[in-house]
């Protein structure tokens, strides 16, 4: 079993190169930010992860969260770790200083989140959801709601959850049935919510649930859904935990991975109805949830990145130490470490290069998020928001799909040993699998990309990005042929991508055809943007250059195959009679 070690230099590089570091001087409240501060924070986060979170990863997986007589208990050690986590102030990293946060940039916050996730993803989900609730209330909550909840959420004394899914309403939230009936200055909430991550636990004294529900007069479908704050314990006059609300966790799921994180079935209003407070205006609940989507979905992309990194580190260590056989074509002499075998090397390099590309994309997106929120120049905010919206489904969908493949590869590097639980890689394999499913499945991301992001502006933002990618200036001597060859590959891939993009845009009247190839288009986008970013960073070191070269020669060629699938593949899917499957 290996100890994860945060790739601090790569993280710092990614923030500085892709996360908009050069632009920080133009951001509000960024006066104190510097490269030294970045380094100090990443360094201490890694120390905390190694000392407190990593040791609980395996034990938490084995023991799992427990439901005992209506109470949910986190695995041993989690409560103490959480208390240390909030005592060290990590909960408020990017939160508004007005409520006790440090107001640090998202690009840094995402890298710190990568560290937490690599060390212990199941643990990390709890503070991540709390951040989501904070952000929602900060943006849409009344002053009164903010006063009652934000300080406690930022400090982490109270944690947060998101309650969207119901048994009949998963990807299709229009089917939500949970009801909210007005009474005095609050509402009575009744209904059942499922898949509520950290919906009940013993880490903190209170849990603040954000719940989607319908008012009695609500219109049908998604336009009739409102958002409510439903605390587990109602705040008393002093702002502390008061009376218990009519909410309980009736069971937790047995599931494939993230065992330490309780996935709860929540029952609201078994007695008089749970007391809830409306967030913002009635019937706007889904829109409020969606303003959180960029943040939450990028967060899940980072989870994919994080587990892929941790799996890569384990595979690398194993491949260096495992001696087995000789190189192809060699019959005698010393046996070699499997890292020298061409196929093992290929897998490790694929992981390394893809992780670099994913980290670059996540930092790029986080940097855009920083700009869109706090750039001094309004035009810059708008431009950053457009880029963020465009690529966000890619950051979620591509990073997580990629990560599932890479973790599978990391297991392959281990051979039979990897299939044994004690190695640790099996846990990565189980934990990673949820990331392509929750917070919007891969298909939901892909449909968002092709329908909303390309559909609404006729592909304008994507074509602008393609132009920008084409204009990439390399600080490398283009003299040698090798380099010129790489650039040709890159430019050809861009042409391919441009044709695919134009095809998707041209098919706006054929939503079935577009939907049939949407995931392929999303993966294509991920690879092309990934190559653009790692080429941007390639001039910084010989290693980065070699990694970029591998990616261009071994991964980028998929793009031309994807183009064929996108342009000609849909009909063979659509024309196939489903009854013959």
């Amino acid at each position, binding site marked *: 079993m290996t*100890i994860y*070690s945060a790739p*601090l*230099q790569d993280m710092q590089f990614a923030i500085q190169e892709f996360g908009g570091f050069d632009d920080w001087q133009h951001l509000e409240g960024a006066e*104190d930010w510097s490269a*030294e*501060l970045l*380094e*100090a*924070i990443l*360094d*201490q986060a890694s*120390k*905390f992860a*190694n*000392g*407190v979170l990593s040791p609980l990863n395996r034990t938490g997986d084995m023991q799992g969260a427990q439901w005992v007589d209506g109470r949910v208990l986190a695995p041993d050690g989690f409560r103490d770790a959480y208390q*240390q986590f909030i*005592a*060290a*102030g*990590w909960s*408020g*990293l990017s939160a508004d200083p007005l409520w006790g946060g*440090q107001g640090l940039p998202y690009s840094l916050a995402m890298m710190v989140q990568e560290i937490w996730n690599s060390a212990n993803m199941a643990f990390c989900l709890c503070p991540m959801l709390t951040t989501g609730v904070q952000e929602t209330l900060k943006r849409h909550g009344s002053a009164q709601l903010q006063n009652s909840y934000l300080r406690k959420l930022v400090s982490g004394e109270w944690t947060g959850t998101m309650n969207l899914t119901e048994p009949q309403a998963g990807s299709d939230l229009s089917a939500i049935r949970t009801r909210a009936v007005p009474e005095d200055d609050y509402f009575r909430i009744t209904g059942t919510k499922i898949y509520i991550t950290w919906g009940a636990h013993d880490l903190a004294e209170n849990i603040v649930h954000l719940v989607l529900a319908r008012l009695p007069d609500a219109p049908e479908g998604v336009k009739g859904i409102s958002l409510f704050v439903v605390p587990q314990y109602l705040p008393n006059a002093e702002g502390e935990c008061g009376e218990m609300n009519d909410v309980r966790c009736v069971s937790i799921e047995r599931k494939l991975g993230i065992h330490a994180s309780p996935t709860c079935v929540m029952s609201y209003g078994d007695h008089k109805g749970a007391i809830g407070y409306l967030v913002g205006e009635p019937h706007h609940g889904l829109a409020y949830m969606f303003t959180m989507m960029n943040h939450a979905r990028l967060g899940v992309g980072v989870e994919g990145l994080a587990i892929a990194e941790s799996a890569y580190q384990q595979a690398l260590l194993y491949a260096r130490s495992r001696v087995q056989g000789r190189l192809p074509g060699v019959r005698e002499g010393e046996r070699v470490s499997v890292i020298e075998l061409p196929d093992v090397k290929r897998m490790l390099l694929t992981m390394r290069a893809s992780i670099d590309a994913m980290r670059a994309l996540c930092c790029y997106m986080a940097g855009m998020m920083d700009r869109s929120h706090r750039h001094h120049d309004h035009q810059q905010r708008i431009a950053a928001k457009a880029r963020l919206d465009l690529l966000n489904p890619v950051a979620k969908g591509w990073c997580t799909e990629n990560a599932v493949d890479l973790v599978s590869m990391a297991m392959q590097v281990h051979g039979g040993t990897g299939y044994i639980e004690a190695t640790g890689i099996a846990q990565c394999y189980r934990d990673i699998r949820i990331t392509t499913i929750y917070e919007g499945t891969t298909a939901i991301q892909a449909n968002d990309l092709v329908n909303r992001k390309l559909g609404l502006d006729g592909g304008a933002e994507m074509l602008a990005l393609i132009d920008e990618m084409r204009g990439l200036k390399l600080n490398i001597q283009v003299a040698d042929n090798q380099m010129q060859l790489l650039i040709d590959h890159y430019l050809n891939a861009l042409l391919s991508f441009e044709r695919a993009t134009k095809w998707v845009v041209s098919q706006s009247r054929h939503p079935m055809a577009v939907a049939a190839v949407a995931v392929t288009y999303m993966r294509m986008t991920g690879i092309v943007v990934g190559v653009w970013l790692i080429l941007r960073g390639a001039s910084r070191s010989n290693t980065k250059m070699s990694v970029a070269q591998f990616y261009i020669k071994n991964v980028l060629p998929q793009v031309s195959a994807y183009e064929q699938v996108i342009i000609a593949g849909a009909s063979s899917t659509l024309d196939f009679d489903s009854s013959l499957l």
Partner: protein
Amino acid sequence: MKVLVTVKRVIDPYVKVRVKSDGTGVETANVKMAMNPFCEIAVEQAVRMKEAGVVTEIIAVSIGATQCQETLRTAMAMGVDRGILVETAAEVQPLAVAKIVKAIIDKEQPKLVIMGKQAIDDDSNQSGQMVSALLGWPQATFTSAITVNGDEAEVKREIDGGMEQLTIKLPAVITTDLRLNEPRYVTLPNIMKAKKKPLEIIKPEDLGVDIAPRLKTLKVAEPPKRSAGVKVEDVKELVSKLKNEARVI
């Protein structure tokens, strides 16, 4: 009471150290650095004493490259009040360290100096003792407990075969052992606050100290690889091998 602690920037203890191919030293380029763990224990001790109301001000001193500022900032994030960096690119050997520290002590007049018992890079285990000798102050090395009572300190020292309890007069130099405490995790708000704490940068020349090395490094090499073991038939053969081949009995 004012306390002075020393902090050294060393290769991170979790990094596998590699010898340079030309044998002149170990590879430090692009290697993760960190505060020497024994120095961290010294800082933690000072901060705990301040939290207990025994100490009023903590000063941390580091000697070395400009990046040692980061190590000092970490110390400040742990609770040190201000830092002094004696900046030099030269190799600084234990005696030079001791002279520099003495010069700063002469200026700052702390009542207690807490140092790591040794640095994990060169494992010299000399600087603390030398500082004490240069100052003519009492010393207590390898301590695992410190209690200050007025002008005295009671300390427990880890010695071969057990523990030694001593009372020493202050001012004194104390060096830390592993069991003294477990250093805290730095909090995020304190990392932010540390940036605003005073950090003075001076040169060895400013202190009038000659830091020219007295020792010459001839060669740095990896320890020899362990060779494979052998099976012995019986106890008799084992004893004979230990006696004649290994020559350990």
